[in-house]
C-alpha cells in the first residue's frame, strides 16, 4: 500500500510545475558552469556593448597579469617572515648587490623592466607589420587564427607577467622598502629568459606569412570539441552542450576551409604547404572515427538535415494528407552523422578542382596520394556513400577542367595527368581493400559475445568503443527498449534469438548497402567513365581505368565471397524471416559483378581499336599496356568459351585479333635481331596465344556442341588470311612458333596458356566414361571411352590415348583442323604428337569395331 502511494505521489510530482522548473534550473546551472569552461578553453565569445567590452578588457588583463603580481608580492613578503626563507646561495651570489643599497637594487630592476618593455614594443611592432600586410588578404576567421595563435599567446603572456612582476617588485622596493634578494634573482633569471622568448615569438611571427601553419590550431580546437561530446564526458547528453560543441567544430572547419583556399590559390603554397595542410587535416579523421563510436547517434553534435520521405515508406495518414491537400510529402528530419567527414572530403574536392583548373598535375596527383589516408579511413568506417559522392565530384572536376587535348599539354603534363588518373583508379581499389580489411577484423561471434555481456541498464555501456560503429544505432535502440522491459517486467522478456537477430541485423544491412555502394562506385567509375575519357581522346587513361576496373571487380568478388563465408552466422541467426531487414544475397551480388565484368571486357575490346590507329610508337609503355589489354581480352575470351557465351566470344574475338596483331608488330620491330632464345619466345608468344585460343574455340565448340563458336572464329581467320598485308606471312609465323615451342622457357603468357589447358582438362575429367573390353589386345585389355556426343572429344580424351587431352597443344589442334589446310602448310617437321583428323578417324573405326554406340548413361553421369 505504501509503495503504491509512493508511486502515485511520484506520478503527481510530474504534474507539478515547480518540479519541471527545478529540473530545468538544475540543468541550466550545470550548462552555465560548463559553458564558462568552454569559453575559457575555446576563447569564443561575443561582446558587443561598451560595458561588456570594458569588463572583458579588465578581466582579460587582470587574469593574464595577476599571477606575476602575486608572485612578486609573495617573494617580497617572504623576507619579512621571522625565519629566513632566502637561501644562503642566493645571498652569496647577490652579495655584490646589497638589498640595503636601494639605488643599485632599483636600478637593476628598472633596467630589466626597460629591456622587457623594449622587447615587447619590438615584438608588437614586428607583429603589426606582418599582420597589417596580411590583414586585408585573409578572411576574418583566418585573421582570428593569427591573433589567437596559442604559442605566441603563451609567450606573450610570459613576457607580460614578467614585466608586471618586475614592476611590482620595483614598487615594493621603492614604495614599501621591501627588497628581497630572491625577487632580484627571479628578475635576473626572467630577464635572461626574455631574450630567447622574444627570439621565439619574433620568429614565429614570420610563420604568419604562410597561414597554413596555423591548421594545427584549428585541428586542436576541433579535436577538443569532438572529445567533449563523447558519452563519457559530463553533460554529454545535454542537447545545448552538444549544439555548442558542434558550432565550435563548424567554426574551426570553416577556418580550415579558408586556409585550404588560400593554400590552393597561391602557387608558392600549393606545392608544399597545401599538401602539408591536407596531411594534417586528414590525420585527424582516424581519431575522430574512434571517438564517434562513443558519441550518441541522437546527439546534437550531428546536425539535423531534411531527407525526402520515400513514398513507399510513408504512412497512410501522411499519404492521404499529401494527396488531399495536393502538397508533397513532408520531409523527414534526420541527423547527418557524417557531416564532419563530408566537410573534410569537401576540402579535398576544393583543392583538387583548383589544381586541375590550374593544370597543376603534379600537385593534383600528390593531393590524391595524400587523400588515400582519408579514403582508406572512410572505407574502413563503412562510409562508402561519402566516397561515392566524392568520386563523382573529383571525376566532374577532371572532366570540366582536365579534359584538354594532349596537344595542348606538354609530354610531362600528359604523363602527370595520366598519373592523376592512375591515382584515382588506385584510390578506389584502396577504399575497397580497406573496407574488406575492416570487415575481416570483425568477428561476429565475439561481437555477439560482447552484445550479450552488455549492461543494458547502464546508459553509456554501449559506447565503450569496442562495438563496430555501424551497430551503434541498433545498440541504442535495443538499450532504450530493453531498459523499458526491465523497468516494467523486472527482466528482459525479449528472447535470446530475437536479440541476436536484431543485434546482427546491422551487419546484414551494412553489407547490403556497402556492397551496393562498392558496385555502384565501380560501375560509375570504371564502366561509365572510360567512355568519357575515350570521347575526350584520352585512350590510354580509358584503357588504364578499364584494366583497373577488372582488377577492382575481381578483388570485390573475391573479398565479398570470403566475407559472406564469415558472415554465415548472420543468416543462421535469422530465426524469424518476417522481421524487417535485408538478407545477404551473395548470388545476386556475384551476378551483378559478373555482368559488369562482361561489360568491361567489351569496353576493353572496343578500346583496342584506338591503339591500332594511334601513334603508339612514340610511347615506350604502350606495347606493354596493349599487351595487358590483349591478355585480359584473351582471358575473357577463354572464360566466354568455357561458359559457352557465344555473344561475348563473337564480340571479343575480332578485336582481340586486332590487338594481338598490334602487339606482334610492336614486338617484331624491336626483336628483329632475335639474338637470344628469350627474344624468339617473346616474339612468337602473341601468335602462339592466338593459335591456342583458336584451338580451344574448336575444342569447346565441340564440347558445348555449339557450332556458332567455331564458325565465328573461322570467319575471322578467313578475313585475316585474306587481308593483303598478311598474305604469305603466316607460313613463316607458324615456323617461328614451332621453333619457339622447342625453347622451354616460362613466361607470363605461357603460364596463362597452361592455366587454360588445366581448366579444359578439369572440364574433360568431369565427363563420365565407360570401359570397353578389347578382348585379345596385347597390351591394353580395357579401354576407357569418354561419354560425350562429340566424336572429336571422344577421340581426344579416350580410345587408344592413355594420357588424355593433356598431351595435346590446342595450337596444334587448330593447325590440324583448319590452318594447315587453309595455308597448305607442310607439317611433317612440326613438334606435335598426332593429327587430330587422324585421331578422329581412328576413333570412329575403333568404335565401329567394338560396336560402341553413344548413349548418355544417366547413372554414370550421376556417379561422376
Amino acid at each position, binding site marked *: 500500500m505504501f509503495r503504491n502511494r509512493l508511486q502515485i505521489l511520484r*506520478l503527481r510530482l*510530474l504534474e507539478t*510545475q515547480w518540479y519541471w522548473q527545478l529540473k530545468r534550473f538544475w540543468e541550466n546551472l550545470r550548462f552555465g558552469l560548463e559553458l564558462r569552461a568552454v569559453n575559457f578553453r575555446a576563447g569564443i565569445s561575443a561582446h558587443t556593448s561598451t560595458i561588456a567590452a570594458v569588463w572583458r578588457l579588465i578581466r582579460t588583463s587582470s587574469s593574464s597579469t595577476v599571477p606575476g603580481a602575486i608572485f612578486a608580492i609573495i617573494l617580497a613578503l617572504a623576507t619579512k617572515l621571522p625565519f629566513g626563507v632566502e637561501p644562503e646561495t642566493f645571498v652569496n651570489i647577490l652579495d655584490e648587490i646589497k638589498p640595503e643599497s636601494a639605488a643599485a637594487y632599483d636600478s637593476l630592476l628598472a633596467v630589466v623592466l626597460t629591456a622587457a618593455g623594449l622587447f615587447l614594443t619590438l615584438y608588437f611592432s614586428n607583429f603589426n607589420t606582418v599582420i597589417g600586410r596580411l590583414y586585408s588578404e585573409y578572411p576574418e576567421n583566418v585573421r582570428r587564427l593569427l591573433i589567437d595563435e596559442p604559442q605566441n599567446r603563451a609567450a606573450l603572456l610570459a613576457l607580460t607577467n614578467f614585466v608586471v612582476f618586475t614592476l611590482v617588485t620595483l614598487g615594493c622596493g621603492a614604495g614599501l622598502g621591501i627588497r628581497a634578494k630572491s625577487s632580484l634573482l627571479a628578475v635576473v633569471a626572467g630577464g635572461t629568459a626574455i631574450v630567447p622568448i622574444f627570439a621565439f615569438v619574433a620568429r614565429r611571427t614570420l610563420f604568419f606569412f604562410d597561414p597554413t601553419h596555423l591548421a594545427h590550431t584549428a585541428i586542436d580546437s576541433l579535436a577538443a570539441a569532438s572529445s567533449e561530446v563523447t558519452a563519457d564526458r559530463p553533460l554529454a547528453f545535454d542537447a545545448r552542450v552538444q549544439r555548442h560543441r558542434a558550432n565550435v567544430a563548424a567554426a574551426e572547419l570553416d577556418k580550415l576551409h579558408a586556409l585550404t583556399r588560400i593554400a590552393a590559390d597561391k602557387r608558392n603554397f600549393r606545392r608544399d604547404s597545401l599538401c602539408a595542410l591536407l596531411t594534417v587535416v586528414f590525420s585527424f579523421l582516424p581519431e575522430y572515427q574512434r571517438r564517434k563510436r562513443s558519441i550518441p547517434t541522437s546527439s546534437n553534435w550531428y546536425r539535423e538535415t531534411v531527407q525526402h520521405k520515400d513514398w513507399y515508406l510513408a504512412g497512410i495518414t501522411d499519404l492521404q494528407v499529401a494527396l488531399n491537400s495536393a502538397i508533397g510529402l513532408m520531409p523527414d528530419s534526420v541527423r547527418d552523422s557524417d557531416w564532419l567527414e563530408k566537410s573534410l572530403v569537401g576540402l579535398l574536392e576544393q583543392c583538387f578542382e583548383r589544381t586541375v583548373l590550374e593544370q597543376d598535375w603534379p600537385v593534383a596527383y600528390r593531393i590524391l596520394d595524400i587523400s588515400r589516408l582519408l579514403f582508406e579511413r572512410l572505407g574502413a568506417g563503412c562510409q562508402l556513400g561519402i566516397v561515392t559522392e566524392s568520386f563523382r565530384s573529383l571525376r566532374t572536376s577532371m572532366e570540366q577542367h582536365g579534359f584538354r587535348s594532349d596537344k595542348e599539354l606538354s609530354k610531362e603534363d600528359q604523363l602527370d595527368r595520366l598519373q592523376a588518373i592512375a591515382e584515382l583508379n588506385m584510390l578506389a581499389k584502396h577504399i575497397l581493400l580497406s573496407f574488406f580489411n575492416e570487415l575481416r577484423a570483425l568477428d561476429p561471434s565475439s561481437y555477439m559475445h560482447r552484445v550479450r555481456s552488455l549492461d543494458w541498464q547502464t546508459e553509456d555501456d554501449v559506447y565503450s568503443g569496442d562495438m563496430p560503429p555501424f551497430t551503434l544505432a541498433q545498440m541504442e535502440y535495443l538499450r532504450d527498449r530493453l531498459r523499458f522491459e526491465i523497468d*516494467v517486467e523486472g527482466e528482459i*522478456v525479449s*528472447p535470446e534469438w530475437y536479440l541476436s537477430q536484431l543485434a546482427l541485423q546491422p551487419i546484414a544491412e551494412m553489407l547490403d548497402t556497402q556492397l551496393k555502394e562498392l558496385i555502384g562506385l565501380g560501375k560509375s567509375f570504371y564502366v561509365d567513365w572510360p567512355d568519357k575519357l575515350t570521347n575526350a581522346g584520352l585512350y590510354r587513361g580509358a584503357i588504364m581505368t578499364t584494366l583497373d576496373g577488372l582488377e577492382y571487380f575481381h578483388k570485390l568478388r573475391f573479398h565479398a565471397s570470403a566475407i559472406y563465408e564469415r558472415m554465415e552466422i548472420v543468416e543462421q541467426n535469422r530465426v524469424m524471416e518476417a522481421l524487417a531487414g535485408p538478407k545477404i544475397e551473395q548470388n545476386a551480388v556475384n551476378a551483378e559483378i559478373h555482368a559488369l565484368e562482361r561489360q568491361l571486357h567489351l569496353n576493353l575490346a572496343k578500346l583496342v581499336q584506338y591503339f591500332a590507329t594511334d601513334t603508339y610508337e612514340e610511347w615506350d609503355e604502350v606495347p606493354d599496356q596493349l599487351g595487358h589489354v590483349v591478355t585480359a581480352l584473351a582471358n575473357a575470351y577463354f572464360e566466354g568459351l568455357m561458359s559457352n557465351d557465344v555473344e561475348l566470344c563473337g564480340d571479343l574475338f575480332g578485336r582481340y585479333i586486332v590487338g594481338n596483331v598490334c602487339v606482334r608488330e610492336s614486338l617484331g620491330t624491336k626483336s628483329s635481331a632475335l639474338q637470344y632464345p628469350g627474344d624468339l619466345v617473346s616474339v612468337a608468344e602473341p601468335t602462339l596465344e592466338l593459335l591456342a585460343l583458336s584451338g580451344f574455340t574448336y575444342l569447346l565448340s565441340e564440347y558445348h556442341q555449339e557450332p556458332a563458336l567455331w564458325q565465328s572464329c573461322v570467319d575471322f581467320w578467313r578475313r585475316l588470311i585474306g587481308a593483303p598485308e598478311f598474305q604469305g606471312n603466316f607460313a613463316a609465323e607458324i615456323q617461328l612458333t614451332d621453333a619457339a615451342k622447342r625453347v622451354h622457357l616460362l613466361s607470363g603468357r605461357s603460364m596463362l596458356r597452361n592455366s587454360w589447358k588445366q581448366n579444359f582438362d578439369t572440364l574433360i575429367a568431369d565427363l563420365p566414361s565407360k570401359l570397353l573390353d578389347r578382348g585379345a589386345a596385347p597390351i591394353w585389355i580395357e579401354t576407357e571411352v569418354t561419354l560425350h556426343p562429340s566424336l572429336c572429344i571422344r577421340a581426344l580424351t579416350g580410345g587408344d590415348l592413355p594420357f588424355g587431352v593433356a598431351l595435346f597443344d590446342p595450337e596444334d589442334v587448330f593447325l590440324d583442323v583448319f590452318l594447315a589446310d587453309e595455308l597448305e602448310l607442310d607439317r611433317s617437321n612440326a613438334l606435335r604428337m598426332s593429327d587430330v583428323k587422324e585421331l578422329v578417324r581412328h576413333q570412329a573405326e575403333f568404335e565401329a569395331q567394338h560396336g560402341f554406340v553413344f548413349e548418355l548413361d544417366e547413372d554414370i553421369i550421376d556417379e561422376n
Partner: protein
Amino acid sequence: MALSLSLTRTLSMKIERETKSPFEMAKQSSVHNGIYVHLFMQDIRIYLIHPSPGGLEDNRLQVQPYTDRRVQQVLMLFSEPMRLSRNIGELRPRDLSGVLAAFIGRVGCDLALSGESFWEIGKRRVGDSGPDSLSTLLWITGEVTDKGNRIRQRYRREIDGRRSSCEVNLPASQACVFRLPQKLGTARDQRTRISTLQEVSKIVPPFVEEGWSRLKHEPAFRQKDYSRTQFRELGKAMKDWGWIGRSWTPEHVTEYYHFYRQAKFHKALAVLRDSIISDMNAVLKRLDVNCEIKLRDTFSVDQIDDVISQLEDGSISFGDAMDRVRS
C-alpha cells in the same frame, strides 16, 4: 468466425459477431439511451450510449464521471481499461447496474433498462414488493461480504445529484456476484491498477494544458520525459493483464515485446471471458433456465499459452500469432 451464444432450450438467441462500431449499431437500433452489449471478437465490451445534446449525429459518446471506487472491480470485468479512462470516462453505479440488467435482459430475463438504475429496479422488485417472478437478482459490487447465507454490501449511491450511502443485505440465493478471476489479481491489485491508470491517463499535466489555453508555452516541461514515465508506469500497472495501451509505439518497446504483451492481454481477456461465461451459466442455472452459454470457435487460454510459447521460440511470426489469438 461466428461467435454465438448457444442456448439449448427456451432462450434460442444468436449474437453474430458485430463488425460495426457500437456507435453505428446504436444508430441503427433503437437503443439511444442505455447500454449496448457489443461482442467483438472474444472481447466483450460494454458501451454506454448517452445522447449528447446534438443527438447521436454529434458523433460523441457522453458519459458522466464516476467517483465511487467500490465497484471498480466489476468495471474492469467489462471494459477495457483505456476505454474506461479515456474514451468513455468512468461509469456511474447505476450505469453499471444497468450493464448487467441489460445483459440479463438480452438473455431473456425480462429486465429492461429504462433509465432508472438497476438498484432502483432491484429495490422496487425485491425490497419493496419482495421477490417476484424474476426471483434472482444480480448484485454488483466490488466489496461484498458473505455472511452465512446472506450477502451484504455497503453502497453509496447518487440519485438526482444527491449522494447517500446505504447497505443492502440480500439472501445469497438471490444474488450473483461477479468477481475478478484470481489469475488477474486481487481486488486490491485492481484498485491500485485503476488508481495508477487514472494518474497516467493525462496527455500533459494540467498546468501545461492551462498554459495552452492561455497560449503560454511551458519551456521547462519535457513532453518526451513525461510520456515515457507515464508509459512505464502504465506498463507496470498492467503487467498482469498484459494490456499494452493504445499509444505504445515502437519508440518505447521492441516489436517482440509489443506482440508479446498483446498476446498476454488476449490471454487475460480469455480468462475474463471464461470467468464471465461461467458466472452467467451459474446465474442461468439458478434461474432454473435449462440452458448453457457456450462460446464456439474461440481460442482457449491454453491455446493462447501455446502461441506465447511459439512466440518465445520464434517458430511463429508476429502476424500469425496475432491472427490466432484474436480469432
